[in-house]
Each structure stands twice: as C-alpha cells, then as structure tokens.
C-alpha cells in the first residue's frame, strides 16, 4: 500500500529554505541525536571490549553467571516490540488511527516487559552475589568460583562492565517507553493523522535504535 499523497504536507522539509536533506526537521534531528547515542555506546562498549581484551584473568564463559535462555526470550520480546512499532507506523501511514493506538499499546507493553525482565534479572544476579563491584564474598557466585567454573580475577571488571552497559541500555529503553506512552496518549486524542504522523516516526526511529543496540549488546555480552 503506497502512502497517500498529502495536501498540507508537514512531512516534507520546511518550504522557504534552500534544499538540505529531503527529510523534515524532526526526523533529521532524531538521526543526528542517534549519531550521538552511537558515540555514547561507543564509549561504554569500547571500554568493555578493551577491558576484556586486556583482562588479566580468564573471562567468564557464557551462561555461567548470566542466564542466556531467559535473556534470549527477552531479546525476542524487544524484537517483537520493534515489529509492533513498525506495524503502528504502517497503520498510521495508511490512515488507520485505531490500529496505531493498538500497536503503540502493544509496543509499550512489550517494552515494559523487557525492562521488568531485565530488572528482575538484575535483582536475582545481585542476590546471587554478582554486583557492579564484583563478586560479593560468601554467595552463590563464590561457590561457582570455588568449583573452578569461574575465575574471580576478572570478577570486578565483569560486574562493572555488565551492569554499566546493560544498565544504561535499560535506562534508554525506559525513556523510550515513557515517550511511547506520551505518543500513545496523543494518538488516543487523535493527535496523528495520515497527513502528519511525524511523532510516531521519530519515536519509532529511537525505538528501533534502542533495539539495534540491544541486538549488539546481547551478542557481545551474553553470547561471546
């Protein structure tokens, strides 16, 4: 289904201006913001890669400390939320306002589920003794070390990098969910029409970016 022509076309670059990029300001602004977010995660993930490459001891194997199956499902939930986001976008671009609101609600619920699963996993890990400051003595995790399945030389680094990266990703997902709720409420009030659904597209770009970062994080933190 092609996008219907629009009369008062809000979704084009501003009229009385020299042609810059052929996209409207909000979208260009979001892409520029996402470039700065890429640099922010470069700082964090870069530090993780460098610390791990130069780590004095042997890094923890996948699925020893972190529960990979649960996180795999969590990744799948975030991918579904990306799909529902894009379905919402397709709905409004075809003029279906009710579809937009329904898909947005689905995205919010999936996103919130992802964050809560992440929160529960944090709570469980901390209780097992795996904290940002490393392995707390006399906990389940030190037994793992005792059984030789894990070296605690790199425990401090493992905790620091894991919690900082996934923590800040969770923070970005939470901000995304809050913005989605705002967009959803506005869509309920009929804020978006087929002619002007910029807000949906911009928050969609942010949401897909957060999903993209998680795809990379899931692989390099949980699987490698």
């Amino acid at each position, binding site marked *: 289904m092609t996008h219907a*022509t629009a009369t008062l076309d809000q979704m084009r670059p501003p009229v009385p201006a020299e042609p810059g990029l052929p996209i409207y300001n909000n979208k260009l602004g979001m892409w520029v913001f996402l470039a700065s977010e890429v640099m922010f995660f470069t700082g964090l993930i870069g530090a993780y890669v460098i610390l791990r490459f130069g*780590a004095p001891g042997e890094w923890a194997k996948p699925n020893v400390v972190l529960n990979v199956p649960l996180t795999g499902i969590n990744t799948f939930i975030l991918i579904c939320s990306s799909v529902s986001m894009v379905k919402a976008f397709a709905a409004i671009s075809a003029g279906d306002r009710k579809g937009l609101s329904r898909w947005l609600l689905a995205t919010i619920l999936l996103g919130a589920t992802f964050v809560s699963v992440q929160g529960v996993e944090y709570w469980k890990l901390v209780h097992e003794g795996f904290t940002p400051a490393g392995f707390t003595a006399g906990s389940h995790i030190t037994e793992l070390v005792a059984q030789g399945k894990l070296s605690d030389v790199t425990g401090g680094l493992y905790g*620091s990098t894991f919690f900082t990266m996934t923590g800040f990703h969770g923070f970005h997902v939470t901000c995304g969910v809050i913005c989605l709720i705002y967009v959803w409420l506005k869509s309920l009030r009929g804020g978006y029409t087929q002619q002007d659904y910029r807000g949906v597209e911009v928050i969609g770009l942010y949401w897909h970016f957060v999903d993209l970062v998680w795809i990379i994080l899931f692989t390099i933190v949980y699987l490698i």
Partner: protein
Amino acid sequence: MSSLAAAAPRAPTHHDDRTFVQKYIFSTDHKIIGIQFLFLSLLFLFLGGVLAMQIRWQLGFPGQPMPGGGILPETMAPGGVILPEYYIQLVTMHGTFMVFFAIMPLLVGVFANFLIPLKIGAHDMAFPRINMASFWTAFLAGAVMFASFFVPNGAARAGWTMYAPLSARPDLSGADYGQICWCISIVLLGLSSILGSLNYITTIINLRAPGMTWFRMPLSVWCLFVTAILGLLALPVLSGAAIMLLFDQTLGTHFFDPGAGGQVLLWQHLFWFFGHPEVYILILPGMGMVSDIIANGSRKPIFGYHSMVFAIVGIGFLGWIVWGHHMFMSGMNPTLGSTFMVTTMIIAVPSAIKVFNWMGTMWRGNLHFHVPMLNAVGFVAMFVIGGLSGVFMAATPIDMHIHDTYFIVAHLHYVLFGGSLFALFAGITYWFPKMFGKMMNEPIGKIHFWLTMLFFNLVFFPMHILGMAGHMRRIYDPTQYEWLKGYQPMNHFITLAAFALFATQFLFIWNFVWSLFKGRKAEQNPWRDNGLEWTLPNPAPHGNWEKVPTVYRGPYEYSLPGAPDDWYPQSSKLPNDREPAPAPAPAH
C-alpha cells in the same frame, strides 16, 4: 547609510503576547538564549580569572598570606595562606571552569545560538524548545560545578583532565563529594552540548534561506557547523567516561582500578579521544568569527574561501586521530606514539593554511582597524605563536622534555587566551549592536586591546622559558627544588603581570556594562557588513524576518568593482542575479 539598506525587508510587526518570563527567562528565541549564555559564561569566565589569580599568587609569593584570603575557610587557606589541597583544587577548577563553562559556552552557546539563524536566514532554530533545554541544562551543570566548592572536603582535585586513579579514589585525592559533583556536572554539560549541537546541525542543513547554498555560507557558519559535529560526537564519549568514573567513585566498579584488572590508561584514552575534538571546538568558532571580521575590516573578500572550508573540514576529520599526542609519555604503546606523532604533524597544516589565508585577506586590503578588527588581527598574531609552539610538542623527543611542564601551559594559553578569548573580544564587540542595539565604546576597546595584548605576552611568553628549564606543571611551591629556585624571580614577574592582565579586564567589563545602558545607539549596519543579520534592525526582533530573505551571492563581496559601496549585502539583487531554484515539489 547608502541606498542599499533601504531595500531591506522590514521587521515583523506581529503582536508579541509572551509574558516577561516567557520572553526572557524561559525564552525559546535563539537570540535571547544566546544572550543568556553570554551573561552566564562571562560570569564563569570572571570566576575562572579569580581562580587564576589565586594560583598566580601562590606561585609568585609561595606560602605568604594572600590579601583577601581571610574569607577562605580554614581548611583551605588558614590565615590566607593557600594549602596544597586548595592549590590543586584551584588548578583543577580553573581549568574546568575556563574550558567547560567559559570558553566553550561563550563560543558555541552564545555565537552558535545567536549567529546561525541570523546568518543563514532562518526564523529560529529547528527545535526552539530543545534549544532552551540546552541552556538550562548548562545552567544546572554550572550550578553543580560551582556548588562543588562548598561540599564537604572541597572541590575535585585531579586536574581538569581528571586522570584516574587519583580521580577515582577519594582516599588518594582527599575529595569525595567534590569528584562526584564534577562527574555529574560534566554529564549534564555533555547532555546540554549534545542538545545544542543537534539543533545547530539540523538548522544549518535544513533551514538555510533560499539561495544560501553551502558555498555561500559565511565561514563563521561553516566553523560552527563543524564545531557542532565535533561536539555532537565527542561529548557523549566524555559523558560515558564521566559516568564510568562516577561509578568507580560511588558503586565501587573497577573500570580504572589497576588492582582488579581495570586499566588506568583507558581513562586517558577516553578523555583525550574526547579532548582533542574538544580543543578544536574551543578554537574553530573563534577562527570562523575572525575570518568574517578580517574580511570586513579589510573591505576585501576572504582569501581562498574554498581552501578555508576544506581546512575547516580537514580539521574536523583529523581532529579524531591525533589524541595520542597527549599521552606520548604516559606508558602508551610507543608504536602508537609514532602514529599519533605523524597525524599530529599533519594537523598543523590546515591551521597554517588558515593563517596564511587571513594574511592574504589583509594583503592589498583597505584596512579599517575598528576594535573587532584589532582583536581579530591580535588573534591571528597570538594563535600563530600557540600553533608553532605546538610543533615542539608534536616532535616526540622534545615532548619527552617539555611534557607536563610550563611549556605546555604556555602553548594552551596562547591558543585559548591569545586565540579564543581575543576572538571573543572581537565577536562580542562586533555583534554587540545586533544583540543590544547599542555600540560598545571604541577608545576603551582599543585601550583594553593594547593593554591586554601587552600583559598577555608578559604573562605567558616567559612560561616557555620556564617550560624549557623543566618547571613541572601544577607545582604548589616551586622553591622546593634547587634548580627552580633560580627561576623564582620569573614566577614573581609573571604573577605581577597576571595581576595587571586581570585588572585590564575590568576595562572590558566596564565597557560591556556601561554600553548596555548608555552605549551610543547603533545604526542599521555599523560595520557595513554583507551578512544577512545586518538587514534586520538592532536589536533583532523575535522571529527575525517576516519573510525569509533570498540570497544571491556569497558573504564576502567587498569592494566589488563597479559597485556604489565597498560592500554588497548577500540579499540585495543585482540585475543579472538569477533567482534560486524553488524547493523541489513533493514527489509522491
């Protein structure tokens, strides 16, 4: 006032129903936000100066009670005598305030906000509300940093570069809350700077007036564009690093803790990966303003516009691959040192091109030495010295001797004070009429320039000599060392010259404040400049133009052969000028 200005479109007369608060406190007008940044940053510039005077007092008169030092708390300066802990706070906070809260906001916060929409012919920034949020985040960051003086145990004390593990371990540095305040403030400033850069980039790309093609943009806008890109991509890395440092201090993480596998050099790499684009953020806007002002003062087109643009963009790219020259002696891999040495040598070339182009602009010009032009030529003269002393440090064997000595302090002050600050004096004087509708006083401006130039050199040139002698940086009391005792008279002399330099700045403060209220009413185009902003009345009204002007030529058409005046505004149409192509119709 020649006939040309009469053709300028009139300012909008629509009724302005915003309340005082909306208009001046929480304003979304890019000009008001620029002026808010101006007042805030001039305050922090003064604070940075006061900190510098205390540093100079301790170096000029080691251990003697500082006049007025009585107000300082006993833990910091008992009886006015500065203690080492306080001295290192002074050094740290002088660097932090000057770099992050004075020069950067003055150049980017004030002039990007104020000039970009005016010079490219836009009603306002692309996202006015985000622009306002950028100012108030910077205000909050400044407040947190200023508050860090008054937290228990005092402000952060690991140098403005905050090298770990000194910055990460309160037991080693003696400051716990101060370091936390520093990190939080820097993260907030990073956010503010990203929001700002986001705005400038979108505005420059999408909101240029019809006819304002990329190569008709003034060089100041080109510089602000590349600065915004550097800021957009560099500040997040600093925010990430500051967050890691904050977690090391509070949550007990081990990013920079060598005991638990953390890497100390990681902080330096992260900091300087941000740091070098940062120092180009601090100089590029100055270069842009100086290019505009020298072209105006010489009544002559800028020499080699395209090569200047390529030099600016070149600095934008090369700025990312040279950060290792701050770390030649830090235990970094020597082969990496060689790579960074070569890239650092190459990055000297764009700056050289710019200096020769400025000189080319003045060559066979018709030089009007108004105060901005004086300061701009002063910028070029002093920036050259800073740039050349940089070559000494790029040569790694020489850097082995002069790294972390006063040679480095001399270099950075020649480019930051001699460079950015002289460009700021020029910029503020030049666009003062557009901001406030009044002219700054000319004689006071000239006296201020010549005295500042004199005392600036008396303070910072001898530091090269101290650096060659091996006088280390951030030394509380140099007389501890035999070989530095001999240089104490020079430190003494530098301190006296620094006091004179500080006193001279009151001339500028007096000129600025007095002209705000009693300055001569500015005419429509006081400097007879071609920029779009001078087609507006002074001070420029909200929303700038009612109808965005159309641009027919570049910004530097001075002394056009056969033109009635020696200047030709970008927006006035010559008979044989073509209308710009209309924006493409919606394709679908």
